[in-house]
């Protein structure tokens, strides 16, 4: 087992070194083959590890001591259990498909840049594996920072474009804000418990050692970390901008894997989170607000990737709603199904963009159905899956979260269903505008329209199949299913707190949410199957089109004041205080030197005078006033 796990992690690292160091040596075929091959091997070993966990339970392997001092011991341990082995499969599986897709999508790049791209991608997989495999928060944090770095590198992959660089910096800095919370939570745990290993932190004994304030603070800080990484309010604005990266990167990092790290982390620490009622509410409220906010913005966007990006933010909000109401298995379920259908949608969008020669505006598309048949059908499957139409995968996972939300509070459910209706609407708006109706692009673009090569359509087909059937791993017992996933996760999240809903209520909820979603998607299909959205006319439409002006708001309340503060420091503090002190010292020395120089006038008499004065001063210093007084009293009294 140790060997298998070691190899799973090692192969992507080897791939990174191979392509990173040999970027000027290998030709593009070698680069593509090796990069994809290493991840594929990693995937095979992940399957082995998964089967091993199925047959003989969770395994922990020790490699070496990462930090070893008197007071704290942090081992470099990996843990493979039900949760992390599932993530392993998703990361390496979807990762392999996206690598394969990238080999065709990125083929216009020069060989060194092609190698750089795959090196980053491999490094990302490596970091992500560290994140999910680590057996303590510190190892998780290493992976956490690693994926953040790779995200930055890949968003700014086309580094000659200043806007892309700006987007990359934005993503990196917003993630740092969240990471600070995560780091503080780790420190808090170390101070209070002296350990960060899951095995010793996530136990009843540890919980007993922590006061309820500690638990609330730690969980909130962890949640701040999750907010940054998983793009929740208020730290979500980096994700839509992150679409500056190549489309497969958006699919892998900003839809399927990295952004779900926050959900993984909270699910992993579910014992802590369950212990704090307050944090649960915060998580749920932030989650549902993000889901609704992002969904409303997605309604009016015209950039194919921006719609998908806001959709991702919205779906992540659903996952946090699930975490907040205690439906951990539902959240993980949604992570898995979302990884499939959102990666599929992004790759489909990539295929469209590829065919359209880097045109991303859906108003200039339309009627692509007949030109890109495979992309069309797979994209449609993705849309149905995310809209929550049974029996596609998105239905099962979303329904599980909504049912748990209803059990907690019907308000969550109502808001969730509104969000689900909007999801169905904007996805089918996107689908209809892109694939139905008449082609609205230039004549030249129409002439060049072509279906993508096999390396791109094969991942689409495989992901479409997965999106369609992945729901099977979590068919609720209500429908005569077994809910394999919940059983799989039981050792980590404990016995699922069965929702106290009757079967009738559950059926009713399900029927309500599904019918609302279907109505929304039919409206969208009907409205957009012939024409695209115009520029928004109403004030609400403009408000949504401009993304609630959140970016401008952040710019005004955070960026501008910080810039002004920096300007103040630069122009006032730096120039007057710091420079003033430095130059003032110099000027003082010069001035006093000019004045003191006059004393040396060549008159020996003055020199003697100063010698005498100096002696008197020295006497006064040596014999302090007490001694002088005593001397004077000796002179007067004794006489």
């Amino acid at each position, binding site marked *: 087992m140790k060997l298998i796990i070691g190899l799973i992690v090692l192969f992507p690292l080897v791939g990174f070194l191979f392509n990173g160091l040999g970027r000027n040596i290998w030709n593009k075929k070698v680069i593509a083959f090796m990069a994809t091959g290493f991840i594929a091997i990693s995937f095979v070993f992940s399957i082995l590890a998964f089967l091993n966990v199925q047959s003989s339970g969770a395994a922990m392997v020790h490699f070496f001591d990462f930090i070893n001092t008197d007071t704290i011991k942090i081992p470099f341990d990996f843990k493979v259990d039900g949760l992390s082995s599932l993530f392993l499969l998703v990361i390496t599986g979807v990762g392999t498909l996206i690598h394969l897709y990238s080999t065709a999508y990125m083929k216009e790049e020069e060989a060194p840049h092609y190698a750089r791209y795959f090196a980053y991608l491999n490094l990302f997989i490596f970091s992500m594996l560290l994140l999910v495999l680590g057996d303590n928060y510190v190892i998780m944090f290493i992976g956490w920072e690693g994926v953040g770095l790779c995200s930055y590198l890949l968003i700014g992959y086309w580094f000659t474009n200043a806007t892309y660089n700006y987007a990359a910096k934005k993503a990196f800095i917003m993630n740092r804000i969240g990471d600070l919370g995560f780091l503080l939570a780790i420190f808090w745990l170390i101070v209070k418990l002296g350990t960060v290993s899951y095995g010793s932190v996530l136990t009843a004994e540890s919980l007993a050692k922590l006061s309820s304030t500690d638990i609330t603070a730690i969980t909130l800080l962890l949640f701040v970390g999750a907010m940054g990484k998983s793009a929740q309010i208020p730290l979500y604005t980096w994700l839509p901008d992150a679409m500056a990266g190549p489309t497969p990167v958006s699919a892998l990092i900003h839809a399927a894997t990295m952004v779900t790290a926050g959900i993984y982390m909270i699910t992993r620490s579910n014992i802590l989170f369950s212990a704090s009622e307050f944090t649960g509410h915060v998580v749920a409220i932030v989650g549902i607000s993000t889901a609704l906010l992002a969904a409303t913005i997605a309604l009016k966007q015209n950039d194919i990737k921006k719609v998908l990006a806001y959709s991702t933010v919205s779906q992540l909000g659903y996952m946090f709603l699930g975490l907040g109401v205690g439906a951990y298995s539902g959240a993980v379920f949604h992570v898995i199904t979302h990884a499939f259908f959102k990666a599929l949608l992004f790759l489909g969008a990539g295929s469209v963009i590829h065919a359209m020669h880097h045109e991303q505006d859906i108003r200039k598309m339309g009627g692509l159905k007949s030109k890109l048949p495979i992309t069309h059908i797979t994209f449609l499957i993705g849309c149905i899956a995310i809209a929550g139409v049974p029996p596609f995968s998105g239905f099962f996972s979303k329904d599980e979260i909504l049912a748990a939300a209803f059990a907690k509070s019907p308000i969550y459910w109502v808001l969730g269903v509104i969000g689900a209706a909007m999801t169905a609407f904007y996805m089918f708006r996107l689908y209809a505008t892109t694939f139905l109706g008449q082609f609205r692009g230039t004549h030249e673009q129409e002439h060049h329209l072509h279906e993508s090569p096999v390396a791109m359509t094969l991942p689409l087909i495989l992901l479409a199949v997965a999106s369609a059937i992945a729901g099977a791993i979590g068919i609720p017992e209500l429908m005569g299913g077994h809910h394999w996933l919940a059983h799989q996760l039981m050792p980590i999240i404990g016995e699922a707190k069965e929702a106290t809903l009757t079967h009738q209520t559950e059926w009713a909820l399900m029927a309500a949410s599904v019918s609302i979603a279907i109505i929304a998607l039919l409206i969208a299909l009907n409205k957009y199957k012939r024409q695209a959205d115009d520029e928004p006319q109403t004030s609400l439409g403009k408000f949504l089109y401009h993304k609630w002006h959140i970016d401008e708001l952040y710019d005004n309340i955070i960026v501008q004041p910080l810039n002004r503060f920096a300007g103040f420091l630069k122009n006032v503090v730096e120039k007057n205080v710091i420079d003033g002190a430095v130059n003032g010292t110099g000027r003082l020395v010069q001035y006093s030197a000019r004045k003191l120089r006059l004393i040396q006038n*060549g*008159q*020996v008499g003055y020199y003697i*005078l100063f010698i*005498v004065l100096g002696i008197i001063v020295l006497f006064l210093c040596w014999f302090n006033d007490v001694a002088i007084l005593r001397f004077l009293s000796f002179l007067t009294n004794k006489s």
Partner: protein
Amino acid sequence: MPIQYYIFFCLTLFSIGMVGVLTRRNAIIVFMCIELMLNAVNLLLVAFSKMYHGAALQLAPGTTAGIDAQIFVFFIMVVAAAEVSVGLAIIVMMYRNTHSVDINFLNRLKN
């Protein structure tokens, strides 16, 4: 006589010498003032020696403790006499060169 009288007297003598050195411009007077300061210190040395010897005699009659400083004073006076001859020679040479004994005239250290 109490020792304080000697101390006051010597302080006064020394101060007169010092003020003279600082204020007068005639080299011979300055020289005399230096002698005044030297002799003030000499006198103080003798006075303290006498006081110490007197105290020692009361404890142990016939002792010579403290008497050595009085002998020392003679040495100082001998050296001072030698120094005076050198100093006066310098002043004579100075007068021959500048036809003046004004010390401020000789501020060639300047520049």
